[in-house]
């Protein structure tokens, strides 16, 4: 009604108003029309007549006017809106437009950029390739490399932004000439380009290979000590843990391993190939041991995780064949951050945390429990003179308290990135320091990185990636002391000196030195030349350099080198270089996409080590082997070269059908002359079913099938094993003349292991919210390497041979669900699960090989245990019982009663990450689970000695449940001091089921508001709380402070790490 009145008045006062030439200047963004009108009124003195509801309904406007005519101002004000205006005298009347006037709306040019929601805060969040269409028309364009677009559309039209993997968004133009859009990924994230080997890439939409991407976002708020640890629970089929056969699991420095899709090799390395920016990283020998030094510190600890842009884990043949003879255990590609065109960013991050030994310790008897058990065990041994029971004193020492402390870790990270003209750069520096929970174990890492991309001309780009770090590790290895030392012993005499009645490692902790310093550089330099459109030549020349110096001093006051002193100075140096040259060709003709790669690569590994050991010093301050009375030197090393040619062809038709073929030809100096060269091939295909026209299942927005087959190899089993090797040691001389003695047998037909991989997969996207990826695989490794007994007429007991084959097959699933997506609240779950079965298919001459606790038999899992079965405790006399081979209970332990039982391979395992976002808060948690599979606990075997070792060593607290009197139903036999030798022999008593659930990591993050940040000139800032190794559950939990699988596996506790962090960027 009000409008009618206005109109009536307007009609009465109908006067030409065009004569007025009032100028208007305006600069508003997203302002209400009414407020703009008021503004114009103030500038011009014109009155405005309008229906406030209509104006409100018409939305907001953005105007940029400088001395514009009023009419121009009004035109722009109403452009794209369903509004008309009329000027009558000094009054402007704004009214709802009639339908007829809408059609005549002019097209306007709209510009804007499209950004990814997920990439917010990153250097370059823009989304290229987003299709922008005008609704109801065929007019369309796509965003360019910077995410920008320009399109002409009616001012009142609607734009549709769409991109596979990001769904679609419709936005009304409303006359706006600048429309910036932020698009959120749908769960499938199909547009993601996965950069795989040698500059090749696949789009997730039609990916054939198995390449799992971990982004830097996944790595946020995770531990900073080593890179391999970060992947556990995130990558389906990847397992991380203590190195098989590591001999120092009680140490703070035990070796760790990463396994992808099970273990395929007996004699060669099972570690994946780690590649940083295209340059392979030497992670040690077959068992991650660093040759030439006493303590192996993984090179994966020398890298700053904050420098990582992404980690790609390659698993199938099409992805790994191109790594040839090194690819069969999977390949892990680490890409470091690059500078992005766009804004300069300066970021600083700090994290500080406490490492708490918590409840993960191995529970041993306290002094009173020990005394009680000792007495009982003493009495139980009839052979002992009961009147001579030793005095057990009144001391009460908690040796965990003695050796362990609260650890402290701090990290500072500074990075600077951006672009200047033709240069893009990323520069970072970081300082990481950790005082470990074990006394005298400190880690210091000072790292830096410079990544530069330089455009020289339109056709030439150069790049440089260099990361370097200085690492200092102070080491003290207490051995088993922290759990075997008796609680009735005190470390100190009343006068404060060390007790020496037992091997008091504290003395060593004080007097000995053990420091390792590593200077590490890895980087590469190279460039690309565009030869003609689509064809580029790329060269990458990289180096992985490590120089590790180890200074160990065994004091003359310490137990092991009493009155003499021993100084060891060792140096181990690795220089691995690599030179790659390749041609990449990419061409798109209509719906045909081609890409071709041809390349060659030369690799050289050079390891040299030397150590100087000096014995006998005048006093403890000298500590320099040069001044020792006796000096011993050792020098060692190895060299290896390899040469490879490789290629890949990829073709995609209409984004639906893709095929991929790869080959690699490898030559290695490690191998015999007959087999110096090997060729590996793979083929694969994928079909993106949902891109077919007939696909009309709305709920399944994406569906793809893939299959690949191919081979790759494993040549990593130590150098020169094929060659008959002579050595010339001092012991090989003959009467002062140098002598050469052959010390490894020759096997000229020794060859690499070859793995034949079938990989298939199904990818689904559901409701735009769920992404599911299922893969199945079958890896058959043939020509497995191992030392085999040979005819002694060769002069050797055993010689390396290709002895058999093993199959690893399994299924993996990765599931991403966007459970809730509200404006202020989001909940995303990433879940993965993997199942692997291992089976020996063939062994040399079908020979069964019995190892310490396991057995290798054709047809069985290679990790099958071969043990005497434990039958429990005889309630009558507390004696141990076993089953004999026929299943009858026996009181005698006999190795002949061993049977094949259970295997280490779990039924399934995986991880789950949940992320909750509420306004500026986000909460993320990582659970890791494992179901099935068995582990033998050496720790338990030795610490539940049932009285046998009690006189010298403390025991597991589980012994409190021992058998005491006839009729007792106990799982622990009667304890007898100094006896029960058989109880401690390997049996299923010490076999644990590995089923467990761990809350590995949880973090709470708060992003400071942009409004606030702008006031203090910061672009981004967040603070967070983080906890690692939070909780561990097994279904077989025992009583409190007893030992179950959690703490019986490795004696070294997994500390609970509580951290606080802050990141700011300008």
């Amino acid at each position, binding site marked *: 009604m009000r409008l009618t009145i206005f109109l009536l008045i307007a009609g009465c006062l109908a006067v030409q108003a065009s004569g007025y030439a009032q100028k208007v200047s305006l600069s508003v963004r997203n302002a209400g029309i009414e407020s703009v009108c008021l503004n114009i009124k103030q500038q011009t003195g014109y009155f405005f007549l309008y229906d406030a509801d209509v104006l409100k309904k018409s939305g907001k406007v953005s105007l940029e006017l400088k001395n514009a005519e009023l009419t121009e101002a009004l035109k722009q004000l109403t452009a794209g809106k369903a509004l008309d205006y009329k000027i009558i005298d000094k009054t402007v009347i704004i009214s709802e437009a009639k339908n007829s006037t809408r059609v005549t709306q002019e097209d306007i040019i709209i510009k804007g950029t499209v950004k990814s929601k997920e990439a917010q805060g990153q250097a370059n969040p823009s989304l290229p390739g987003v299709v922008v269409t005008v609704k109801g028309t065929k007019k369309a364009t796509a965003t360019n490399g910077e995410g920008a677009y320009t399109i002409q559309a009616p001012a009142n039209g609607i734009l549709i932004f769409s991109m596979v993997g990001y769904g679609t968004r419709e936005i009304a133009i409303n006359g706006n000439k600048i429309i910036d859009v932020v698009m959120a990924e749908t769960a499938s994230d199909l547009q993601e380009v996965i950069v795989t080997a040698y500059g090749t890439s696949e789009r997730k939409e039609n990916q054939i290979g198995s390449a799992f991407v971990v982004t830097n976002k996944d790595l946020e708020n995770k531990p900073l000590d080593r890179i391999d640890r970060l992947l556990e629970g995130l990558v389906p089929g990847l397992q991380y843990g203590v190195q098989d056969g590591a001999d120092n699991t009680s140490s703070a420095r035990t070796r760790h391993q990463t396994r992808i899709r099970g273990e395929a090799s007996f004699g060669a390395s099972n570690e994946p190939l780690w590649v940083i920016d295209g340059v392979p990283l030497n992670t040690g020998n077959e068992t991650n041991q660093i040759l030439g030094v006493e303590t192996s510190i993984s090179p994966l600890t020398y890298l700053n995780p904050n420098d990582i842009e992404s980690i790609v884990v390659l698993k199938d043949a099409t992805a790994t064949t191109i790594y040839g003879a090194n690819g069969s255990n999977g390949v892990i590609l680490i890409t470091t951050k690059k500078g992005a065109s766009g804004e300069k960013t300066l970021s600083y991050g700090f994290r500080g945390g406490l490492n708490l030994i918590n409840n993960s310790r191995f529970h041993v008897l306290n002094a009173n429990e020990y005394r009680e058990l000792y007495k009982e065990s003493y009495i139980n041994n009839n052979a002992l003179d009961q009147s001579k029971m030793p005095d057990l004193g009144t001391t009460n020492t908690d040796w965990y308290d003695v050796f362990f402390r609260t650890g402290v870790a701090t990290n500072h990270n500074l990075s600077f990135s951006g672009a200047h003209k033709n240069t893009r750069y990323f520069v970072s520096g970081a300082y990481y320091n950790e005082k470990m929970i074990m006394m005298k174990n400190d880690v210091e890492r000072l790292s830096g990185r410079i990544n530069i991309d330089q455009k020289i001309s339109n*056709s030439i780009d150069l790049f440089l990636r260099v990361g370097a770090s200085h690492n200092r590790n102070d080491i003290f290895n207490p051995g088993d002391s922290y759990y075997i030392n008796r609680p009735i012993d005190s470390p100190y005499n009343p006068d404060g000196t060390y007790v020496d009645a037992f091997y008091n490692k504290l003395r060593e902790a004080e007097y000995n030195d053990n420091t390792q310093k590593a200077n590490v550089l890895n980087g590469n330099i190279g460039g690309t*030349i565009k*030869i003609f459109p689509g064809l580029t*030549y790329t*060269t990458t020349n990289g180096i992985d350099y490590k120089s590790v110096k180890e200074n160990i001093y065994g004091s003359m006051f310490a137990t092991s080198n009493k009155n003499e002193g021993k100084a060891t100075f060792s140096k181990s140096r690795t220089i691995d270089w690599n*030179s790659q*040259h390749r*041609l990449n060709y990419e061409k798109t003709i209509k719906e045909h996409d081609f890409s071709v790669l041809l390349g*060659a690569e*030369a690799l*050289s590994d050079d390891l*040299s080590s030397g150590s100087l050991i000096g014995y006998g010093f005048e006093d403890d301050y000298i500590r320099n082997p040069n001044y020792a009375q006796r000096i011993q030197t050792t*020098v*060692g*090393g190895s*060299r*290896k*070269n390899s*040469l490879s040619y490789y290629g890949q062809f990829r073709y995609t038709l209409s984004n639906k059908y893709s095929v991929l073929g790869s080959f690699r030809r490898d*030559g*290695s*100096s490690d191998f015999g002359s007959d087999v*110096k060269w090997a060729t590996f091939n793979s083929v694969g295909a994928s079909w993106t079913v949902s891109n077919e026209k007939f696909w009309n299942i709305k709920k399944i927005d994406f569906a793809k099938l893939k299959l690949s087959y191919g081979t790759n190899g494993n040549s990593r089993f130590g*150098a*020169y094993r094929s060659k*008959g*090797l*002579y*050595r*010339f040691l*001092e*012991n*090989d*001389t*003959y*009467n*002062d*003349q*140098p*002598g*050469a*003695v*052959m010390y490894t*047998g*020759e*096997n*000229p*037909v020794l060859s690499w292991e070859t793995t034949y991989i079938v990989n298939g997969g199904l990818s689904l996207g559901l409701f735009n919210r769920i992404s599911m990826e299922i893969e199945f695989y079958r890896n058959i490794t043939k020509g497995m390497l191992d030392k*085999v*007994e*040979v*005819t*002694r*007429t*060769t*002069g*050797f*007991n055993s*010689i390396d*041979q290709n002895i058999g084959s093993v199959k690893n097959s399994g299924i993996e699933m990765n599931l991403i669900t966007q459970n809730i997506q509200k404006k202020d609240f989001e909940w995303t779950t990433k879940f993965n699960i993997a199942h692997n079965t291992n089976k020996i298919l063939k062994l040399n001459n079908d020979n069964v090989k019995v190892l310490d606790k396991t057995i290798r038999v054709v047809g069985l899992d290679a990790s099958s245990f071969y043990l005497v079965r434990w039958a429990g405790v005889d309630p009558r006399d507390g004696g141990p019982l076993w089953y004999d081979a026929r299943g009858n209970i026996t009181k005698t332990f006999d190795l002949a009663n061993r049977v094949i039982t259970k295997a280490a391979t779990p039924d399934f395992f995986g991880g789950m990450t949940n992320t909750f976002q509420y306004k500026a808060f986000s909460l993320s948690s990582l659970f890791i689970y494992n179901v099935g599979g068995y582990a033998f606990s050496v720790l338990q075997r030795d610490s539940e000695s049932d009285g046998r070792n009690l006189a010298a060593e403390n025991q597991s607290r589980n012994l409190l449940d021992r058998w005491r009197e006839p009729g007792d139903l106990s799982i622990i036999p009667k304890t007898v001091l100094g006896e029960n030798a058989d109880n401690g022999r390997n049996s299923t008593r010490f076999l644990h089921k590995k089923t467990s659930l761990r809350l590995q990591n949880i973090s709470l993050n708060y992003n400071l508001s942009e409004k606030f940040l702008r006031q203090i000139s910061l672009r981004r800032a967040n603070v967070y709380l983080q906890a690692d190794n939070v909780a561990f559950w097994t279904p077989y939990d025992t009583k409190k402070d007893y030992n179950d699988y959690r703490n019986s596996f490795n004696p070294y506790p997994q500390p609970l790490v509580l951290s606080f962090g802050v990141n700011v960027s300008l």
Partner: protein
Amino acid sequence: MLKIEMKKINYTLILVLLACLALISCKKFLEKEPFGKTGKNTLFETVEGAKMAINGSYNSMLAYYKNEFAMYADITSDNLIKGNKASVLLPQFNFQSSSGDDALAVGDLWLHMYETLNNVNNILNAVPELKTKFPNQVKTLDSITGQALVMRAICHFDLSRVYAQPYNYTTDASHLGIPLLFKTPSPGQQVARNTVKETYDQVILDLKSALPFLQQHANGTVQTSISYQAALALLSRVYLYQGNWEQCVTYADQAIANTAYLLAGASNYKSTFLLKPSLTLKPEVIFQLTNTGLTNGGSSIPTVYSDSTGAQYSASAKLKSLFDPDDIRLTQMFTIPKKGENAGKYLTVKYADGTVTAINPPAIQVIRLSEVYLNRAEAKWNLQRYTEAANDIKTISQRAHPSRTIDITYSSNSDLYKQIAEERNRELCFENHRFFDIIRRKEPLQRGIDCNSNTCSLTYPNDKFVLPIPNKEVEANKAMKQNPGYN
């Protein structure tokens, strides 16, 4: 502009091609050698490499001699009794060898003899090419060839002595010998045993073939390596074992006729064994294995035989009774500790004079001139040249009795045979002969009254006179036949 682009493209292409070519042309790139060790092929690219390999072979041979082999034929014989600490070759002392004893003498000897053989064969197979490559070093290479041939003969002969019955066990020596190898088999290869006849034929062939190569060392003075005379002397031994008496005498004559090697006098007899190798001091030793780097410790021969505290075996009553009281081989060649574990026992001083020290490396006499005399004596007896035989043992006995004149008188020819055998044992006890001598003479083993073995007598023929082939060998090598009496 287009021209410039084209030029750039050409330039680029050239670069690319060059880079590829550079990689391909590096043929040597894939021939990388380890550090501080070298592949077989590289070692034998130079004469120096072959020299090092021959030294390495001696070193390897010494390893099997010093730890077990050089004690085998005394410990298994009637010469020794065990002490409380006896462990080395104890199963052999008790005749309780088992084919499963892979880590003991049964497996060790087999493995280490073939280990040496492997080193030796590698040399022999590499030398022909070296000769064409280095024509001006042919003399050196010939010497290496000669030494290697003799070493191959020694390896084959020693293997046969331990693992095969003596030559005359069957009339035509058609019984199981040992695998003869001229090239190291590949890991999966099956290697069968040759007959004893084939074994001896090959040993003799190698020794004879070595002679022309070693001719240049006819007056060789380095006793630690193999000389022309060593080959001659060894031929006399092999022919003796074979029962080819004429040939035994022929080669013994040649060895004795050479004036570079003479019997030591009584006054420096002991030093022949104990002092550092030097021809002036001990011209009697034709070939010995010793090493300046050799330590006496562990279970090696000086500890087992001669260390007053550590010795594991001492002379039996039967052996002691062979000596006259004034025989210097009794009075000078034994040490009798006054206290401790071995108090009152007769320990040989052939390897160390009662104490084992790191200085003065022990020497293991592979062949001495006195053996050649004794070989000849036995061969001549078999040729019924009894007087000459008596003369030879007189030479040996006289040297051991410097204070009086020795006359060999014998009541019968068989009495002379007995005297020859006894003289041989007096002279060569503790030098790895006795047991081999017993079985090649088809005698039974009869230990004395102080026998403290589980087995004090064995009749001839006897399966136990040879060691079993180690089980691990039979398992890995399907063509290998086990010795009768073992499984």
